[in-house]
């Protein structure tokens, strides 16, 4: 992998390569270019799941002429697909080098330990939602129970914006969650449930199940479950599996076409 990356930079296939370098005993994101080719020997896989695609997007926005390479986990590749579909990236701006490691339902191979849900506590099982549930399990609950369990989960939110900040497919420069006319701003606890349902609606056709939001959430709201329920609706109603292709998405196209 290190040799491939080095050769990509040397041959001019990419101007920069974003990968992880072992620094102080931890794989930290690092940019490799012609200026620091020797450091390519220290490239390691991105086992801590940094949102490298967000770094690449920021760089691509500031310098649209650059060709950027990126060490891509399976979720990174899906998010790059989405960014292309939603016109945030040109096709050749970012070149991924695949690193297959994903246990999500959306991917084929698996090695990532982050998406294995840990054992859920008793209180959470009684009043809230076990993150290990599938969307079908939630649908089987009666509507009253569904409502009260989700309201419990949303009420824990402290509006840290962690989920939105780390999401690789959240690319809006002006976020509706910070717009005072749409969602109540300026108070400590977020407006339940509008904050989360707004986020859920924005994740329709965009969430690629990388799990970074749930990892980032300090109060353990089962966000992966929420967004997988949302994308299940998109799959059922529009026959569109998010992130698997670079074709236009139903919710990205004006008019009534679905493809």
């Amino acid at each position, binding site marked *: 992998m290190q040799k491939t990356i080095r050769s990509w930079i040397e041959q001019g296939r990419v101007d920069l390569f974003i990968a992880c370098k072992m620094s102080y005993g931890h794989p930290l994101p690092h940019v490799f270019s012609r200026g620091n080719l020797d450091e390519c020997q220290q490239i390691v896989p991105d086992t801590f799941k940094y949102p490298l695609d967000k770094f690449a997007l920021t760089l691509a926005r500031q310098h649209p002429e650059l060709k950027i390479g990126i060490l891509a986990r399976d979720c990174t590749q899906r998010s790059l697909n989405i960014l292309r579909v939603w016109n945030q990236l040109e096709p050749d701006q970012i070149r991924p080098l695949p690193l297959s490691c994903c246990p999500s339902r959306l991917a084929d191979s698996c090695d990532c330990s982050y998406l294995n849900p*840990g054992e859920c506590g008793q209180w959470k099982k009684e009043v809230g939602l076990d993150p290990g549930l599938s969307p079908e399990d939630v*649908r089987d609950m009666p*509507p009253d129970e569904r409502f009260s369990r989700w309201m419990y989960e949303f009420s824990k939110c402290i509006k840290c914006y962690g989920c939105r900040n780390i999401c690789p497919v959240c690319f809006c420069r002006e976020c509706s969650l910070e717009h005072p006319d749409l969602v109540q701003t300026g108070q400590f606890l977020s407006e339940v449930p509008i904050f989360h349902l707004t986020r859920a609606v924005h994740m329709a056709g965009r969430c690629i199940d990388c799990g970074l939001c749930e990892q980032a959430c300090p109060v353990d709201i089962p966000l992966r479950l929420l967004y997988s329920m949302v994308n299940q*609706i998109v799959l059922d109603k529009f026959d569109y599996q998010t992130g698997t292709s670079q074709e236009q998405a139903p919710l990205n196209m004006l008019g009534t076409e679905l493809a």
Partner: protein
Amino acid sequence: MTSKRMIFLQELLALFGLKDRLRLEWISSSEAQKFVQVVTEFTEQIRSMGPSPLHGKHKIDRFAITGGMLNAKDNQKLD
């Protein structure tokens, strides 16, 4: 586009127990009668469904929840 979003949103709200509270109609400014009819019908439909869960019996007391979380051994990640 709106119709796609509405289909999706109706499903989403149904998933949260807020079924049948959202409706989309295309009415031109010259179709006053249709407007009256739709609004009356929908108002009756909503009224018959009772108060919204957001303001009804499921109103959540946030500080009780936080207290419950701190007292109970909730989730191992929080320990």
